[in-house]
């Protein structure tokens, strides 16, 4: 087939604009994913920003017709793991203060806030591999196969990381129910 550079230009431009709209729509979920990995807003948004930049830079490698969100999550988890390995960015940072809860809040509300903070902290204590598995399946709602694809591991590896991560979290967060 004859190549038409002008037409290719237009096609690429349209694709890029569509992709940008999809990425904007994806930002809330990517931020949630990053928050569950890093435990704080600043590192999480750094991770999301790097993810967006890397994705747009490499957009030619994304195959149209495949899920853009899975591809973005894959980039995010790669950056996260790289960052952890470099011991520079995205490392566990102090959990946002939960003790600043105004005293006018009812006991239940304070309890709920403490539970949130405990949950965020417990996630930070998991090994990164387990944290990724827990986050993708339980927080982001991916199916096992999708999550395994994002992490580029066999499904058995995913389910075993998921089981170990859950066990550790349940011990920390729901000991009374478990015993």
């Amino acid at each position: 087939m004859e190549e038409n550079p002008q037409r290719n230009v237009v096609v690429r431009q349209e694709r890029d604009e569509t992709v940008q709209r999809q990425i904007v729509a994806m930002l809330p979920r990517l931020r949630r994913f990053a928050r569950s990995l890093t435990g704080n807003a600043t590192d999480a948004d750094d991770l999301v920003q790097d993810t967006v930049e890397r994705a747009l830079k490499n957009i030619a490698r994304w195959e149209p017709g495949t899920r853009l969100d899975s591809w973005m999550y894959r980039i995010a988890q790669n950056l996260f793991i790289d960052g952890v390995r470099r011991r520079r960015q995205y490392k566990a940072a102090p959990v946002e203060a939960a003790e600043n809860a105004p005293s006018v809040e009812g006991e239940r509300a304070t309890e709920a806030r403490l539970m949130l903070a405990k949950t965020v902290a417990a996630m930070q204590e998991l090994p990164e591999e387990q944290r990724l598995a827990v986050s993708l399946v339980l927080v982001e709602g991916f199916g096992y196969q999708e999550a395994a694809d994002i992490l580029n591991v066999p499904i058995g590896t995913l389910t075993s990381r998921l089981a170990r991560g859950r066990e550790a979290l349940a011990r920390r967060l729901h000991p009374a129910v478990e015993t």
Partner: protein
Amino acid sequence: MTVTTEKLLAYVDGELSPDEMKIVQAALAADPELRRELETQRALTHSLQSAFDRVLDEPIPGRLSEAVRSRDPGRSWHHRVTEALRETFAVRPLFSGAAAASAALALGLAAGVFVAQPDGGDFAADPQGLMARAELAKTLDRQLASDQDPNAARKIGVTFRNGNGEYCRTFNVPGSAGVACREPAGWHVLALAATQSSRPQSQYRMAGADMPDAIRDAVTAMMAGPALNAEAEKRARDRGWVAGN
């Protein structure tokens, strides 16, 4: 326990087939300990979702929207070309034909990967790189810097020869400035960068004054001799920009 932990978790996650679900449900009915484990897992899922779902309701920080927008096709393309140039000239500061050739290669790749033209018709992506076409090609072919309409959309800056003896000219088009060299196939655009104003007719800007650093640097790197004066420019044009030494 009558079913494995992983099976129970798969049940909680909705990953089981209808048949497997029935097996787990039967086991749950018979085993209080398994029911407690199920409750624990459901409570855990709930805790995780409450802790992180609230992020969805937060406003998106400006820097993230900006990260998506700042790659809008027009700017992205400029950005990419400029980046390719900078990398090329940073690793090869020699003002030689080889440097110009590798710049051309880098630009060709950049343009091929992510071309999205800001202005439609002035450029064509080609296997060799980016070529000037239509009005821009015409301007590069004919227009003398000494004799141009100050309100023209496309203007010529300086004309010079590169290490291969080819004639090169800087130009301004709406929103961009660049430099192109006359090769047998046509005007090969070796550098292009966004100009600050996307309104070329702005009366506050003079031809040639609106020259981004990236272009100025590229020109400095490519030049093999002084810029042509008006007389030499006219002579070169009248001879059809034939390369030589």
